[in-house]
């Protein structure tokens, strides 16, 4: 349609990226300096990273669900792009949740993996959204594809609360949450500040990644339109030459 670049990098995006980078680095430095706890010793320092990564995967799938609902209501393709971008970043964060959790578990539980409810559901979440991303690539006309994806995005998100409450509903090897909106009293004060900083930092990193992925999706869409117009122009030119 137009030759202008869609969603150029704006200064708020740059600012967000810079803030994410600095706060993540600060979280790592402060996290590694946290005092050892009686139960887990130095391994409790994983609290500065692992819950934050897991939170971002939940957040990502929540954004995907909201954008999916918005697409079904407004039929604006930009909501579909946002849903896809957020799910892709969410899959990365879910994989990171499993990796960081596995390393932490090896040191503290003594095993890399156990099929308890929390871990089973997190693995399920990863495969569900890999399936969602695959569905987005199934060839169909753009409207059908987006509608299909939106329905899938709204269904898959139902697993998120089940995963979150798995440690409360069932017997798990995984410990219960130490942070449910407010920190629990068994959480040492020094940990609260670093955990909060980590939540902020990781959320900014997530937002920055989604913005970048969304821009890429918009550009791809625009390039697809330009390609189509070029092809049409080419055929028209052929028609003029041929009698």
């Amino acid at each position, binding site marked *: 349609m137009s030759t202008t670049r869609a969603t150029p990098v704006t200064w708020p995006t740059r600012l967000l990226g810079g803030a994410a980078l600095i706060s993540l680095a600060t979280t790592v430095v402060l996290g590694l300096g946290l005092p050892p706890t009686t139960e887990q010793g130095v391994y409790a320092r994983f609290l500065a990273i692992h819950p934050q990564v897991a939170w971002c995967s939940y957040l990502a799938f929540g954004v995907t669900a909201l954008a999916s609902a918005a697409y079904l209501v407004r039929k604006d393709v930009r909501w579909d792009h946002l849903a896809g971008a957020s799910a892709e970043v969410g899959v990365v964060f879910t994989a990171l949740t499993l990796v960081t959790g596995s390393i932490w578990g090896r040191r503290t539980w003594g095993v890399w993996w156990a099929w308890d*409810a929390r871990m089973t559901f997190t693995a399920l979440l990863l495969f569900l959204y890999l399936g969602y991303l695959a569905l987005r690539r199934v060839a169909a006309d753009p409207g059908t594809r987006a509608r299909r994806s939106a329905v*899938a995005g709204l*269904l898959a998100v139902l697993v998120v609360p089940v995963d979150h409450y798995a440690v409360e509903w069932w017997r798990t090897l995984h410990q219960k949450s130490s942070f449910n909106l407010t920190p629990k009293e068994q959480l040492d004060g*020094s940990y609260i500040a670093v955990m909060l900083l980590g939540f902020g930092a990781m959320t900014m990193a997530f937002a920055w990644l989604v913005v970048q992925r969304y821009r890429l999706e918009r550009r791809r869409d625009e390039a697809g339109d330009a390609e189509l117009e070029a092809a049409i122009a080419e055929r028209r030119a052929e028609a003029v030459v041929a009698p």
Partner: protein
Amino acid sequence: MTSTRRVGVAIVVILAALGFLVFKGLGNATVFFRTADEAVHQKASLGTRRFRVEGVVVDGTVAQQGNAVRFDIANNGSTVHVVHQGDPPELFKPNIPVVLEGRWAGDHYASDRIMVKHTEDYRVENPDRVKDYPTSTTTP
């Protein structure tokens, strides 16, 4: 439209299959472990079947015996004598909850895997160490 419907049906079938697998699997995961008292009460029905058991390691019962470690775990007033083959994990110590994998073998539970089940307790080590310091030095 029919192709959309077909894909819709496929998605529903896939989700149903996933759901079935989850709840079938969760039959296992929901009883990820039996507590020590449950293991004692269900001893007859468990036979020599493999299961996981959870309890707190009783202080003063841990003893190395060749390649094995002997200790007791307790939960809700029941005690299970454990013989574990192999090395316990790094954070294994008395007074912490553990989940064991193994089976009943006569009067004891034969374990071959110990998982340390830590809680959501993140209290810093010895925050009162400074307060204790003078008392330990003033007494000769």
